């Protein structure tokens, strides 16, 4: 956190000065560790074993916040009798289908719902994986009916609490030590600190950076953290929560208003040709007909979006234009796209402030893909590697790209900086903040707002008069933007009454009858009363610590989600010290320091009438109002591709045989089995010793992602001027590496070179009886800029988490050798020789299912 989010870290320092204990768990000792009370080194890729051990400690010692757990989580819900655990099936949950590599999820369901329409069979589960739709409705659980059988005593052997307890029983401190390399006393120190600092009077925050997402089990990492926080009663309460520290100014916004293949604004799914052939199928897939909560109104959000897109042309008769929407047929994610480029299937590519030649996994595939396009449009502030791959990329030296033979036409369109345009960023806590424009952009520099407004105008002009059905969606589009007025777009995002044009105050005002239009329902309210709420700037020093009058947070300006849970079931604060939102019986409303994340006048004692659904079905103590059953999920009966509970799988590339199960790695991971995407062998496959070391990558404080905004600036470049690799003194001795000397790092994909920093901040670990060495690299360098160097992301292959299709890029295996790498074709020879030694023939791929020790 101190490394990548220094200004956010001020609150950790402040808390520490006030007596808080700070624990840092990380494969390497960082600037965060330097300020922590306790540093816990661990093996990269073993986080679920570590966190699972914490769950076992909590349940084994009954350290959970029982009243909270019973009231607000699904701990008491009974699970189907068909469910079988990984502990029973040696690393698989019940329902695995080896053919598709996906699960039939019926047995995971709550009791009595195994046959429910919402249950995913393995084919649907496979489609969900391909379209990253397992978790696409980020702000809520997937649809399940509201009425479920429960045992509030938590004694039923199939209640979630007992299922969880059995699942994690093997994650003892001894096992944590064996899998993670964390000494038992250190691990127990973490457990004791975490549990003793949670409960009525105290809360603990779990903060992670999004390296956690970059694993083949990334979603389950975060799930494990969420389970702990639910068990300890740390969700929806001040000082608690699971806090993702995201790395880009508006990466939250780019998910809410997505530039993502599988989503429409507000987490509405992009239609799938088969699952969503009709408007009604689409809407019904978003909400379960009997579910609780605000997703039950999905039709209003969906219709309002289509009205915002197509205005008067969207009518009830034409399903609001739904039939104009393009359809998914499978995986269309960024990695599939790059492989399609290599295969010559894609003609044109826009890069909008993005530098995949350096920033995405498998850099060579990225560059070879771009070299096989008809045209490429790069919009950026500076000349970046993704714009110059055809003249100075690494493949020029190896002869794989020859400028005179590379047909890609490249347009470099200079972009406006953040100072030269107005608009909102959504930062990591869902807070929208408006930026005022300081001055006009120079020269040909233009904003994306201008570029896409203009591009849309030109396309529509060129198509004017077309009668082709395919051009209808473009010609009927509402597209009368000025190109420099951010507020006019923000008004559309907020939503308005179609008849009067007046902004809607909130998403609850949206209608399914076409009378409202809304560009992104969860942002409804950002232009409440015709006022740009994101531009509010009441100084922090003039308001309470929640600072509710600074910017605007979705949904409905709530700063802490699910804050109903900060009060007990009767609506009283859990403690005076931790009061946040509570029920004022006299006034008959919820009140507090934040906007209550609950219907304002729904009393704690409210119980829904028989057969209720939607918002009406939310009971007065259902704190998790977007979940289908109103509860925080310790166990996920549906919605996750890889299982209802997190379980430890080894990273796809690991020097360690999974100590817990025969199944080595996530059996549902997304793979691309192609000769140009080899994976280093891992046990029980042979030849893993060719790549004996674990590596991880991350950011330095002094640089930003792929370097486009930092390696171009002298004041940042001088602070970290060169690509380097950090190794422990022990590894340095083992491989003959010298401090400040050169080394090269090799995987089945690439070999890169870097200067060596020998440092005590890296340490070997003892894992399953063996000494495991880890090395670390920053990933900021490339061939353009004031300071240049090899790219760490070139080392990576492409294997993805099955839920969200994010690559495993925070852990892999490699070799490291002293000296510089070869140049020219000899570099390819070196990597090929490593592949040969590792037995990686072009058609050799690690099977999803680990069947046999001798495989």
């Amino acid at each position, binding site marked *: 956190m101190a490394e990548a989010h220094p200004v956010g870290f001020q609150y950790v320092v402040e808390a520490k000065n006030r007596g808080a204990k700070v624990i840092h768990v990380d494969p390497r000792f960082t600037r965060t560790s330097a300020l922590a009370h306790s540093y816990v080194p661990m093996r990269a890729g073993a986080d679920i074993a570590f966190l699972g051990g914490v769950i076992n400690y909590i349940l084994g010692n009954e350290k959970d916040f029982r009243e909270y757990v019973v009231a607000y989580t699904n701990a008491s819900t009974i699970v189907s009798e068909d469910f079988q655990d990984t502990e029973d099936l040696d690393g698989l949950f019940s329902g695995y289908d080896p053919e598709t590599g996906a699960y039939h999820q019926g047995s995971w369901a709550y009791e009595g719902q195994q046959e429910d329409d919402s249950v995913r069979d393995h084919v649907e589960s496979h489609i969900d994986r391909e379209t990253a739709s397992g978790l696409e409705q980020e702000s809520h659980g997937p649809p399940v009916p509201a009425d479920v059988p429960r045992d509030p005593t938590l004694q039923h052997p199939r209640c979630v609490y007992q299922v969880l307890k059995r699942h994690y029983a093997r994650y003892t401190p001894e096992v944590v030590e064996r899998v993670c390399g964390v000494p038992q006393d250190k691990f127990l120190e973490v457990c004791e600190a975490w549990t003793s600092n949670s409960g009525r009077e105290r809360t603990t925050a779990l903060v992670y950076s999004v390296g956690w997402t970059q694993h083949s089990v990334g979603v389950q990492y975060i799930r494990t953290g969420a389970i702990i926080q639910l068990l300890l009663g740390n969700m929806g309460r001040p000082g608690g929560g699971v806090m993702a520290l995201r790395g*880009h100014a508006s990466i*939250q916004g*780019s998910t809410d*208003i997505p530039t993502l293949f599988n989503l429409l604004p507000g987490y509405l799914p*992009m239609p799938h040709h088969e699952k969503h052939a009709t408007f009604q199928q689409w809407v019904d897939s978003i909400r379960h007909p009997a579910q609780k909560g605000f997703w039950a109104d999905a039709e209003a959000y969906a219709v309002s979006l289509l009205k915002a897109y197509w205005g008067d042309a969207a009518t009830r008769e034409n399903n609001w234009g739904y039939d104009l929407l393009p359809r998914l047929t499978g995986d269309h994610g960024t990695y599939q796209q790059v492989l399609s480029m290599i295969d010559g299937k894609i003609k044109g590519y826009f890069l909008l402030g993005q530098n995949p030649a350096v920033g995405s996994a498998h850099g060579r595939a990225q560059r070879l893909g771009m070299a096989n396009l008809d045209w490429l449009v790069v919009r950026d502030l500076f000349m970046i590697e993704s714009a110059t791959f055809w003249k100075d990329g690494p493949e020029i030296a190896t002869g794989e790209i020859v400028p005179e033979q590379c047909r890609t036409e490249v347009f470099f369109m200079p972009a406006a900086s953040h100072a030269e345009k107005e608009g909102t960023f959504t930062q*990591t806590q869902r807070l929208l903040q408006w930026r005022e424009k300081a001055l006009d952009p120079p020269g040909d520099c233009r904003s994306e707002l201008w570029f896409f407004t203009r591009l849309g105008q030109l396309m529509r002009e060129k198509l004017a008069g077309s009668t082709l059905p395919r051009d209808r969606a473009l010609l009927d589009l509402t597209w009368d*933007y000025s190109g420099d007025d951010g507020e006019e777009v923000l008004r559309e995002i907020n939503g308005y009454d179609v008849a009067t044009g007046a902004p809607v105050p909130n998403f609850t005002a949206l209608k399914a009858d076409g009378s409202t239009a809304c560009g992104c329902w969860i942002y409804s309210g950002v232009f409440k009363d015709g006022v740009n709420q994101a531009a509010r700037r009441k100084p922090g020093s003039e308001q309470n610590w929640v600072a509710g009058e600074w910017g605007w947070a979705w949904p409905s300006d709530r700063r802490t989600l699910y804050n109903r849970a900060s009060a007990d079931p009767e609506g009283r604060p859990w403690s005076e010290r931790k009061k946040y939102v509570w029920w004022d019986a006299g006034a008959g409303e919820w009140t507090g320091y934040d906007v209550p994340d609950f219907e304002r006048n729904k009393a704690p004692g409210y119980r829904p009438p028989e057969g209720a659904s939607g918002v009406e079905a939310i009971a007065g103590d259902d704190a998790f109002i977007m979940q289908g059953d109103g509860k925080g999920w310790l166990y996920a009966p549906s919605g996750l591709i890889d299982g209802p509970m997190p379980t430890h799988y080894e990273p796809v590339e690991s020097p360690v045989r999974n100590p817990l199960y025969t199944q080595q790695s996530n059996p549902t991971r997304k793979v691309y089995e192609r000769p140009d995407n080899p994976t280093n062998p891992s046990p029980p496959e042979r030849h893993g010793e060719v790549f004996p070391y674990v590596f991880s990558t991350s950011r330095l404080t002094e640089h930003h992602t792929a370097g486009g905004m930092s390696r171009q600036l002298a004041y940042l470049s001088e602070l970290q001027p060169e690509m380097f690799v950090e190794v422990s003194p022990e590894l340095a001795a083992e491989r003959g590496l010298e401090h400040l000397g050169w080394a090269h790092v090799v995987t089945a994909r690439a070999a890169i070179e870097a200067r060596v920093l020998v440092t005590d901040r890296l340490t070997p670990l003892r894992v399953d009886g063996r000494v495991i060495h880890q090395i670390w690299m920053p990933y900021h360098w490339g061939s353009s800029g004031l300071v240049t160097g090899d790219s760490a992301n070139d080392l990576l292959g492409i294997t993805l988490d099955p839920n969200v299709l994010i690559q495993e890029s925070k852990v892999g295996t490699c070799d490291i050798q002293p000296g510089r790498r070869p140049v020219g074709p000899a570099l390819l020879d070196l990597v090929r020789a490593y592949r040969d030694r590792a037995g990686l023939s072009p058609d050799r791929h690690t099977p999803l299912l680990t069947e046999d020790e001798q495989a």
Partner: protein
Amino acid sequence: MIVTGVRVFGMGVRTWIEGWPVYRQLTGTDPLGRGAAAQSARSKSLTARTETADSVARSVCPYCAVGCGQRIFVKDGEVVQIEGDPDSPISKGRLCPKGSASKSLVTSDRRQKKVLYRRPYATDWEELDLDTAMDMIAERVLTARAETWEDVDDEGRPLNRTLGISSLGGATLDNEENYLIKKLFTAAGAIQIENQARI
């Protein structure tokens, strides 16, 4: 000439002598000449350039997602300083090294300010007029779309799309910009739209 000189001498001699450091040192409170007596006219007149800016924009740092407040000071059409906004309850006026380098980011002479174009098989860039480039890009999008259009799947269900166009980016763009990007591409049938959030 002489008259003028006399006039200047007559008006300025006292000031001139009093401005002389040695005079100030010998007659003033700073006999060692290390403080007030040594202060140059430039030093005396120094003022922070933030105080003389023509305008101040309230902005947000473009690097990570903490969302630190920034104040952007502009003088004579140039950004002269970017520093933390003390009013922000998030950042309280503070910035990390990257945020502190924002002025360089905006004002760097390494920034590309002209459209550049690389023809197929060319070995170098050439310049291109912005309007021409926009028109060429619009043409190429429409051509790629037409060549790769898919109306229906093999069972006749609608597809309404092209797989010939890709896009990556958006995590450092504004919500309003992402909204237009998604809206336009969706209407054009381009579905391979992604950003850093997938990475």
